[in-house]
């Protein structure tokens, strides 16, 4: 009996002793899922082995991204994959945050909008263009919903007596994610910019009108402050009327987005913004490289198209016109810039929309012109995210952000690169092999052929 007891005790102790060293190494991965499960019970997706371009931090080689409930849980090297996690093998692949297109036209909206009809009820996630967009790596678009000006999604009526109706009305835009086939998680934000057509600021009369509009907004804010000082029973009826978009602009809650190409146009916008103290995002900025030093201090952010060229202005003594080096100059002057597709209204006529395919290609042009690859990539991701006030959600691969991730088969700025898979909100919405909207072939096949020929 004693022998048996002893034997059992020894056996038990050896089992425990054997267990201990075995148990210790996998302890961290065992505890992490338990902790996360308490917080959110969703399943985990692990994208393993890829080169991660975090955009905001360093590049992680052979890294792992853990995704849960549509958010990035963790990204880094040597991350243990929790048990039961769905593993996406990304060995040899390049992982980048989904690209953001700031110029799109009525993508993902099919119902009537405007007036009583809200954009949230007019979404069409079966828009074939959404799949094309995913195919070229765009996971978020800022899409125009109306013609702008008088029509479209303008919120407040124009109570301005002098300015022509609707001149300074914002063109409607919505920020949508390309959740092809799902409404959930598609709508992100309405009117991220106070976007005004550049024609509204051109010429002496329009500039005068804009100044009047700004003054009205200023007096509106002033009256509002006085009223709150006096209390609710103040002079309610005597409050001056003003364009609410402009009021928000002056209060720093909105940012003006318009286009300006020449030095004069850019300077005009800077003068206004500095004297009235509001933020501007300028689109085009073809001659911005000549006055890059002025843009930085003025707090201008730029949306550029590196491929577009502008011929020098005839009859001007100083240097004018566009250059491919624009991005480099902006980068050196510390001006944040986003990169846009060539066409203002994104055309999707061709296969997968050739303009759109040009988004990383545009960034490549910026690199050709002397811009760093890091800034070029940021110009497709985190910079446009910041412009729309969505830097907490999209634009980089960081813990806590939306899991909008592209799995690429090559360098993000290479012309040969295809999107293999596109995740939006942690779900694979595009798979090149399954979607079959872009050519499916294995490049290594050609490499082998070459070897045989030798």
């Amino acid at each position, binding site marked *: 009996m004693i022998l048996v007891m002893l034997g059992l005790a020894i056996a038990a102790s050896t089992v425990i002793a054997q267990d201990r060293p075995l148990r210790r190494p996998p302890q961290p991965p065992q505890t992490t899922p338990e902790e996360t499960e308490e917080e959110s019970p969703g399943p985990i997706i692990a994208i393993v082995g890829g080169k991660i371009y975090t955009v905001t931090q360093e590049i992680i080689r052979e890294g792992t991204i853990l995704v849960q409930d549509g958010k990035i849980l963790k990204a880094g090297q040597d991350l243990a994959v929790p048990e039961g996690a769905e593993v996406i093998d990304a060995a040899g692949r390049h992982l980048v945050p989904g690209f953001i297109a700031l110029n799109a036209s009525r993508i993902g909206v*099919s*119902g*009537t*909008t405007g*007036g*009583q*009809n*809200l954009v*949230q*009820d*007019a*979404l*069409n*996630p*079966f828009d*074939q263009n959404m799949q094309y967009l995913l195919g070229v790596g765009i996971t978020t678009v800022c899409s125009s919903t109306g013609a702008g000006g008088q029509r479209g999604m303008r*919120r*407040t009526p124009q109570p301005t007596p002098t300015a022509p109706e609707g001149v300074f009305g914002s063109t409607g835009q919505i920020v949508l994610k390309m959740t092809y*086939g*799902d*409404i959930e998680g598609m*709508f992100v*934000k309405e009117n991220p910019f106070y976007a005004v057509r550049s024609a509204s600021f051109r010429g002496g009369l329009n500039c005068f009108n804009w100044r009047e509009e700004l003054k009205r907004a200023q007096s*509106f*804010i002033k009256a*509002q*402050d006085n009223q*709150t000082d006096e209390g609710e029973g103040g002079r309610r009826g005597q409050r001056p009327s003003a364009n*609410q978009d402009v*009021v*928000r602009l002056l*209060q720093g*809650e909105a940012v003006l987005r318009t286009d300006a190409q020449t030095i004069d146009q850019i300077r005009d916008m800077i003068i206004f913004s500095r004297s009235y103290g509001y933020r501007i995002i300028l689109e085009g900025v073809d001659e911005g490289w000549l006055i890059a030093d002025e843009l930085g201090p003025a707090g201008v952010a730029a949306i550029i198209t590196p491929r577009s060229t502008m011929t020098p202005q005839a009859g001007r003594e100083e240097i004018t016109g566009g250059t491919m080096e624009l991005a480099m100059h902006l980068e050196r002057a510390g001006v944040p810039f986003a990169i846009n597709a060539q066409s203002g209204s994104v055309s999707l006529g061709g296969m997968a929309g050739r303009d759109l395919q040009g988004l990383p290609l545009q960034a490549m042009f910026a690199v050709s012109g002397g811009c760093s690859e890091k800034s070029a990539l940021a110009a497709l991701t985190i910079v446009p995210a910041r412009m729309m006030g969505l830097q907490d959600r999209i634009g980089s691969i960081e813990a806590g952000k939306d899991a909008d991730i592209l799995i690429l088969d090559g360098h993000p700025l290479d012309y040969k690169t295809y999107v293999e898979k596109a995740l939006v909100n942690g779900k694979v919405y595009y798979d090149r092999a399954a979607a079959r909207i872009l050519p499916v072939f294995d490049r290594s096949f050609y490499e082998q052929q070459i070897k045989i020929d030798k």
Partner: protein
Amino acid sequence: MKIYNQKTHFRRWVVEIPAVVALLTILAWGQELKERAVAIRGAAIETISGGRIEKGNVVVRGGKIEAVGAEVEIPDDARVIEAEGMTVMPGIIDPYSRAGGVTGGGEFVRVADQFYPYQEVFKQMLPWGITNLSITPSSLGQTAVIAITPDLPKTMVINKDGNLFLPVTNSTSSLRVLRDGLALRPAGPQGQGPEIPTRAGRGRGQRRGDQTQQQQRQRAGQRAGQQAAGGPSSMADPLWAKVVKGEQYLIVDVANSATILYLGEILEKYPEVKVALNTNGSTVFETLETLKKFKPLLILPPRIENQPNRQYRINAARIAHEAGLEVAFTGLKPEAAAAMPGMRAGRGQRAAAPPTRGASEVNRDVPLFPVAYLVKAGLPREIALLALTLKPAQVMGLADRLGTMEPQKDANLLIFSGDPLDPASRLLRVMVEGKFVYENKN
């Protein structure tokens, strides 16, 4: 006084004599109906409810089916139709028809109030094998069920109080009708705008801006409400109440796939609500995951369709059935059959058909060809037959009266020369409410 009395006396006679005569004739007519039965002998019977009887008899009396079965005795007085080798099945029911052109207009269209029976289209339908239709308005309204009896136009409508019908698109004004209706919210001043995710970080100016937005939305809500269930809301409200309790199907027509996702979101909160969704195959293909969640009965055209944006062909009825969804067919027309690929060549009609006969005329003898095509492509046969008969009856709320070969049901039946789903079979006779309304003389 006397004169007055005589007058009343006289008057009474004037009324009573015709009344008595009428009563007698009605009684005699009724007697005659009761006496005369029609019996179909020796046919294969697709009962729908009780499977297929290989050889049996059907006895019809007084517009109703009296008996069905292999062992059923044929009454002595019955007019017998020898149907050896033939197949009897219930008449085809279309749960979503616009026949007769009830276009509506106005806020709430009650089809029964606008129905006009004296139309050629109903006579044309007789050879198609369709015996009942649910006529649907083109805007918010109430359907009506008719029997295809153009010879008795006054009694064609068999159910004036049909289902609530609603076309839905992905726009706020349209979705609000559904949202308000299901919430049994009286439309009008109470109609609130839908919730909009509000932006973080509000300033003073923004708050004011939001107030005006709120007012705008409220006004918009009122407008939409008045357009929607408002107006004659007294007509729509009791129907919404029935729909919410699940007593009656809500028939919905969706404009596109996106709308189905919105429907899914809204109906998630109302598990009791039974929805019949009029849509098409590619939409079903795209939105199958959402459809599986709220499980509507699908009203589909019986045809092979393409995947959206693809050239791959799909059998949507089969896909829906395999996903656990109920299916009813609509829009069965000889023209549809004529358009089917290989239809004429497959039947060897190319040489046989005289050139004077149009395609529709040729093909109307086999009205179920499109359905047979789907069955050949993998849709179970019994599901296909259900989708033509009992499922539509179920949508209309008339499953106790139509859709199967059972005693006490309306005697609406078709006699085919063979298997109804065999392209070589011909539709020979159509009976509606106990009377043969069509006989194939070709």
